[in-house]
């Protein structure tokens, strides 16, 4: 045979052509080719054959897809059956998909949140070598750890250790009092203003958009702006080399840096050169106000550096100090979540919170998975015949298992799609709940998508494995005979799962109620001072000079109850001092101290227990030019007396004391007030008069028309100190801000407790429906024999209420104990008490009964003739 089509055409045809058509098509081609070659020419035949293959291929390929092997046929069948089941049992499928979607949506949101929290500060290059030096003061009274270090630390580190490649000191001037910036007519109060050393951009990897990173912070009076602040002051003009006024002094703009990424623990708007400060020229150990960050060449020797440093410091300071300084190195990536320093420069989060929220997310997802498991196994009766038939026709257990696992994968896939829609809808609410800025685009990166894929596989498997196992285990004989009954173990398993779901719900409810209770306690407890109706205004030297004028002018108004000034707000007093009390105690005690004016105690509503208030004579004595001659008057709180073990208050009056070099005597005793958060015990506190420290002005208002009063006060303020913007904060808001993380925890708990119970009830609803369906005949017979509707309702509700009660018995003690642990973190706390526990069970039972009641009442009201007619 010479006239055969080219080999490659035949081979191609064999490749594309489905098996069952091959003989016909190939044979016909051979014949056609031979014909044409004989009658016309070989080349024409070749062309024809080529055209034939070209034209036939698409059709053949489609045909092939249609009938290939039994494997794909079965797969197709599984998918069809899965979708038919979803459609046939639309109600239950919706319960499943909706429940899973809500659970998944929670999980996705929480995942995004946690991912963002864990990404803090990781954008710096070689971040593992960057440390912040912290300082622990150790004295007889205990320890206090702070991130603030002395000026001498960094120069010492650089001199003594070759490993310290770069270092930078950061001075948070805004933390003491916000600075005022002015360019032309644009003038704002700026809290995020920092003085930093010139090596700032060697230690950190913030991107400089304009200017020279190694030189821009070298010269005194230079300032680097972020894009945001450059735009705020200069609009579209180029800010470089322009002059901007910082608290009245001219600073030159030497650089523009990108906005601080929102996952940086250190958020700044302005960076000014450290050399502008007087402190830059000194090297002292005695005052610690500067955060010190260092970049090491490698992080291998951190511990030995720490050891040597502490030895050297001890040497430099000499022996015989009552208080020792211990330096430590904290990796910069630990600052946001793992810092044990109570007062961070800027508010940070805690890893415990991350753990709590992750666990809650997983629990919610578990509840949703359990719904699927329960509904799928409860419906097994309906699928039993199908499984039986499949097995009779030769399916092995593995195939049935794979089929049901596949069904759960389909449901999970649908749920994930719905969940992503939910996530998009819930995004704004979630952002306001957590204070994050997560956007839809964050979903579209590989790690999130991988996470989704893993979740998909995990959920499909967890939710699908048990139903698949149980369904595939049926023996075909009994199933097809029709006397298939639910297995006892299956029922048990379902009940255990329901108990588990409700345990989690009850736990979350108790948690929510306890957090609420504690927050309520914190907000309503008598603090010892009156935080309502007070506005706080930051001050500067000019305001302090005009303080008496401000007082006279403002107190003329009937709606201003009082004006006073202090170095810190009573909401959170942090200034640490040592107080030596000769004749009573050998070593000085560590105390908090705050500089106030003579009206402060009265204006804040703090009770004076003994002695007198400050007066003008005290002010005169401390204002003497010669430091040596100054004499201080001190008012102390009861805690000071307690620390000194003095029982009678009168005894302390007139006692000579020394507060960090300030000589003077105690003139009064005040009642303890909560001068810091409820997490900590009330410290010994000393009040003194010292005008140079004044930082904050307090105006107590007494008005029905807040807006009018505020406007009037503002006018007055602008008249007296025109260079200072009238930017104020309410004291009670400042107080609430201290408990923001508890507030968030309470919000998160509330939302997730509600979701947990909704999802659990969705599952319960489905289960009850099936239980009722199964017992339709029984209910019919009972009704015929005279059972009443309430008794039938009770009959059905009993089974499920029992489960809720068991869940309560399991979870209440655990919740009680865990919440007790949480409360232990507060020095001043409420108790868990009976109420949260009682409310949780009543609530859950009520909601569960409500869920059950729809189905059970429907069943109880059904005409028995309907159910008994069949058969």
């Amino acid at each position, binding site marked *: 045979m010479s006239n055969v089509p080219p080999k490659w055409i035949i081979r191609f045809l064999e490749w594309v052509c489905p098996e069952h058509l091959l003989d*016909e*098509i190939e*044979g*016909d081609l051979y014949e056609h080719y031979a014909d044409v070659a004989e009658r016309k020419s070989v080349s024409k035949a070749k062309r024809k054959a080529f055209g*034939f293959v070209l*034209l036939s291929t698409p059709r053949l390929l489609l*045909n092939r897809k249609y009938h290939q092997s039994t494997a794909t046929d079965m797969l197709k069948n599984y998918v069809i059956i899965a979708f038919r089941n979803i459609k046939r049992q639309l109600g239950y499928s919706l319960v499943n998909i909706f429940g899973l979607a809500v659970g998944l949506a929670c999980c996705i949101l929480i995942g995004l949140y946690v991912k963002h929290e864990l990404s803090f500060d990781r954008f710096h290059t070689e971040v593992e070598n960057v440390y912040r030096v912290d300082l622990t003061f150790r004295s007889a009274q205990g320890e206090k750890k702070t991130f603030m270090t002395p000026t001498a630390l960094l120069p010492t580190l650089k001199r003594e250790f070759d490993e310290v490649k770069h270092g930078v000191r950061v001075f948070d001037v805004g933390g003491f009092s916000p600075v005022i910036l002015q360019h032309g007519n644009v003038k704002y109060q700026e809290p995020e203003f920092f003085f930093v050393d010139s090596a700032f951009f060697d230690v950190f990897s913030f991107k400089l958009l304009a200017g020279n990173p190694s030189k821009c912070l070298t010269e005194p009076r230079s300032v680097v702006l972020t894009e945001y602040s450059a735009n705020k002051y200069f609009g579209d003009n180029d800010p470089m080399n322009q002059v901007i006024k910082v608290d009245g002094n001219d600073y030159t703009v030497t650089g523009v840096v990108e906005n601080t990424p929102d996952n940086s623990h250190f958020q700044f708007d302005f960076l000014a050169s450290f050399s502008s400060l007087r402190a830059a020229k000194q090297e002292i150990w005695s005052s610690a106000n500067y955060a010190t960050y260092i970049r090491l060449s490698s992080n291998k020797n951190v511990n030995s550096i720490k050891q040597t440093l502490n030895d050297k410091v001890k040497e430099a300071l000499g022996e015989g100090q009552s208080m020792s300084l211990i330096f430590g190195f904290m990796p910069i990536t630990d600052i946001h979540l793992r810092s044990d320093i109570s007062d961070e420069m800027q508010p940070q989060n805690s890893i415990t919170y991350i753990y709590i929220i992750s666990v809650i997310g997983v629990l919610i997802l578990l509840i949703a998975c359990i719904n699927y498991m329960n509904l799928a196994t409860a419906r097994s009766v309906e699928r039993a015949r199908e499984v039986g038939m499949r097995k009779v026709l030769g399916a092995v257990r593995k195939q049935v298992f794979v089929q049901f696992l596949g069904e759960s994968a389909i449901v999970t896939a649908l749920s994930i799609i719905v969940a992503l829609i939910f996530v998009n809808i819930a995004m704004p609410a979630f952002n306001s709940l957590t204070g994050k800025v997560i956007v839809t685009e964050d979903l579209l990166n590989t790690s999130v998508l991988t996470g989704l894929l893993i979740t998909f596989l995990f959920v499909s498997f967890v939710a699908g494995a048990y139903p698949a196992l149980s369904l595939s285990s049926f023996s075909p004989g009994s199933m097809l005979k029709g006397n298939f009954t639910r297995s006892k173990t299956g029922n048990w398993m379902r009940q255990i799962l329901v108990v588990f779901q409700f345990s989690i719900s009850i736990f979350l409810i108790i948690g929510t109620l306890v957090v609420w209770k504690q927050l309520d306690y914190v907000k309503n407890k008598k603090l010892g001072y009156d935080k309502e109706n007070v506005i706080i205004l930051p001050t500067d030297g000019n305001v302090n000079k005009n303080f008496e004028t401000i007082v006279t002018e403002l107190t003329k108004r009937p709606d201003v109850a009082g004006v006073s000034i202090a170095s810190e707000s009573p909401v959170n007093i942090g200034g640490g001092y040592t107080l030596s009390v000769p004749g009573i105690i050998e070593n000085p005690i560590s105390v908090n101290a705050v500089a106030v004016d003579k009206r402060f105690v009265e204006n804040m509503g703090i009770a004076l227990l003994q002695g007198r208030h400050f007066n003008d004579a005290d002010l005169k004595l401390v204002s003497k030019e010669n430091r040596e001659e100054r004499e201080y008057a001190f008012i102390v709180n009861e805690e000071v007396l307690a620390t000194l073990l003095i029982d009678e208050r009168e005894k302390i009056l007139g006692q000579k004391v020394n507060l960090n070099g300030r000589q003077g005597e105690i003139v009064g005793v005040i009642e303890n007030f909560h001068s810091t958060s409820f997490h900590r015990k009330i410290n010994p506190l000393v009040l003194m008069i010292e005008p140079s420290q004044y930082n904050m002005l307090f105006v107590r208002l007494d008005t029905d028309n807040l807006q009018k009063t505020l406007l009037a006060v503002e006018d007055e303020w602008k008249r007296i100190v025109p260079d200072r913007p009238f930017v104020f904060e309410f004291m009670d808001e400042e107080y609430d801000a201290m408990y923001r993380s508890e507030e968030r925890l309470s919000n998160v708990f509330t939302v997730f407790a509600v979701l947990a119970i909704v999802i659990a009830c969705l599952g319960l609803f489905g289960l009850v429906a099936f239980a009722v369906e199964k017992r339709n005949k029984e209910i019919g017979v009972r009704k015929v024999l005279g059972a009443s509707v309430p008794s039938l309702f009770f009959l059905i509700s009993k089974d499920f209420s029992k489960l809720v009660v068991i869940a309560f018995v399991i979870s209440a003690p655990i919740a009680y104990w865990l919440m007790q642990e949480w409360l232990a973190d507060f020095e001043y706390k409420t108790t868990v008490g009976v109420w949260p526990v009682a409310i949780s069970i009543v609530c859950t039972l009520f909601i569960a009964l409500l869920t059950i009641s729809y189905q059970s009442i429907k069943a109880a009201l059904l005409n028995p003739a309907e159910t008994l007619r069949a058969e």
Partner: protein
Amino acid sequence: MKGTYLGEFEELVLLTVAVIQQDGAYGNPVMLEIENRAKRNVSLSAVHAALHRLEKKGFVESYKGEATAKRGGKSKRLYKISAYGLKALNEAKDLREGMWSAIPNVVLDKGSL
């Protein structure tokens, strides 16, 4: 069944199968027959497509035929018209005849002019 509509080319192929099924109707002879009678170029793949479609619609039935050396040793697939196919052809014919008889004579006369 998908659709039971009989397309123009399908009708042609179906008729051809009916004509030559005694001698064995498969791709190549069907193609040649159409080429001879209708004087138009028909590709083999189009004939295959039409035959498969007709089979799916139930108008023809197929069975395995003999193999020849010219076919490279592959067996033929032979087609014959089914009762249903015959009925469809008849219906198509009736439809046409009915419409022919409905054409007014005037039109026919004009057409002949």
